[in-house]
């Protein structure tokens, strides 16, 4: 497969970037998108050029490190996959592929396709936790009976890997799906009830301070989420927040 790549190159956070064209040949359909970029980088290094910087770690869709806005979509044209799980068979010989970093004021570009997603970490620090005694007499979570539906729904929310595709896809760069999932995974379980009020108020406050936009319910986040986190999480976040606001 022969491809033309239009890749965003940016030296650092303080410089302006631009799309640079690269020609690449010999790409197999079974390769992952990141493997294709590995091939490109090998070529660039052999020519003495600067390789393209991009985020990656587990390469099996569970760590949430890889990103990339490919042909106008977060994680590319396939559904329920991260960029590392995206196969090159999704593209055709002769295609031109646009590759850009996730764009949001709260996700500043560090270099090329690498963005700083530590704003998500700060939202988590603001309330995405429960207090558990770890002094040796910890009670096993399974010892507490939990309604099956609630347990399953909480688990679905907990599958959010925090990759930021929701922010990247949203026309407003809203982080509501991420925060909704992180609030929901605790809101539905007894362990999460104790700090529920402060959690949702603090996480939304931090989300707003980071400069994410407002959710206008376009649903783009749900479609592009590699883990299929649903809009119900945003509705639950709205309910939890409004109830917490009335309480406190």
């Amino acid at each position, binding site marked *: 497969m022969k491809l033309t790549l239009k890749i965003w190159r940016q030296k650092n956070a303080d410089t302006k970037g631009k799309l640079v064209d690269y020609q690449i040949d010999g790409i197999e359909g079974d390769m992952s998108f990141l493997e294709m970029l590995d091939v490109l980088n090998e070529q660039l290094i052999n020519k003495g050029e600067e390789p393209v910087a991009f985020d990656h770690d587990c390469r099996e869709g569970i760590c949430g490190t890889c990103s990339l806005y490919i042909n106008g979509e977060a994680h590319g044209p396939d559904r329920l996959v991260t960029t590392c799980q995206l196969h090159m068979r999704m593209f055709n010989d002769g295609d031109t592929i646009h590759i850009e970093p996730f764009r949001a004021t709260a996700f500043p570009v560090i270099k090329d396709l690498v963005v700083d997603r530590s704003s998500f970490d700060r939202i988590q620090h603001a309330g995405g936790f429960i207090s558990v005694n770890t002094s040796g007499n910890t009670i096993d979570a399974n010892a507490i009976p939990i309604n099956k539906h609630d347990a399953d729904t909480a688990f679905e929310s907990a599958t959010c890997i925090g990759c930021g595709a929701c922010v990247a896809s949203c026309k407003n760069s809203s982080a509501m799906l991420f925060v909704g999932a992180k609030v929901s995974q605790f809101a539905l379980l007894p362990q999460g009830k104790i700090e529920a009020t402060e959690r949702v108020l603090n996480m939304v406050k931090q989300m*707003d301070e980071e400069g994410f936009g407002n959710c206008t319910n376009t*649903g783009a986040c749900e479609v592009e989420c590699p883990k299929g986190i649903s809009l119900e999480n945003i509705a639950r976040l709205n309910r939890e927040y*409004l109830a917490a606001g009335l309480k406190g």
Partner: protein
Amino acid sequence: MSGILNSSIGRKFAMALSAFFLMIFLLQHFAINILSVFSADTFNEASHFMGTFWVVQYVFQPILILGVLFHFVMGMILEIRNRNARKIAYVKNNGSANSTWMSRNMIWTGGAILLFLGLHFYDFWLPEINTKFIEGDMSGTLANGEYRYFEELQHKFVDVWRVALYCLAFVFLALHLLHGFSSAFQSVGANNKYTRGLKGFGKAYAIIIPLGFIFIALYHHFNH
């Protein structure tokens, strides 16, 4: 509580509440206007009641104007904040792959409706205020003693360009409602087993009500 209203979720909640209010008003407005197709007398009586009953004039009317202004101003505030949340746009963005045109263009369809409201106020609201509160004529009648409302309505829809503008505005209203109806429920946290049915009802509302207004405008244009 003020902290909540200054948050992103609080603003969207307030936006949704004003949207509910405006959607109920739209239904009421349509219910009275459609009377003009079936009976000029009934339409005249309903219009005279709405135009002279003090609760409608001095309580509901100011609330309605404030509701429209709030919806517009809050929409602009949200839009500005949203644009600041992504200062550098994508070179290539495939928005249609994951969302509807209506959901991505609420600010433009809303702006078109606001422009139409300017024309609508010029056509009906300002003359009404002038007649009742400046000239002091609360009778609601013409020189011949008959009610003036039906006559004024038909007179406005003689001009083909005005009818065309009204029809175009109602198309924008339909596009705005096609996303806005279900979006308002999501913003207040309502996403449950009834959501699918509610979305269906919302689509019917978003199409039937504007189509009804278009029908009324065309009916009077061709039957004046």
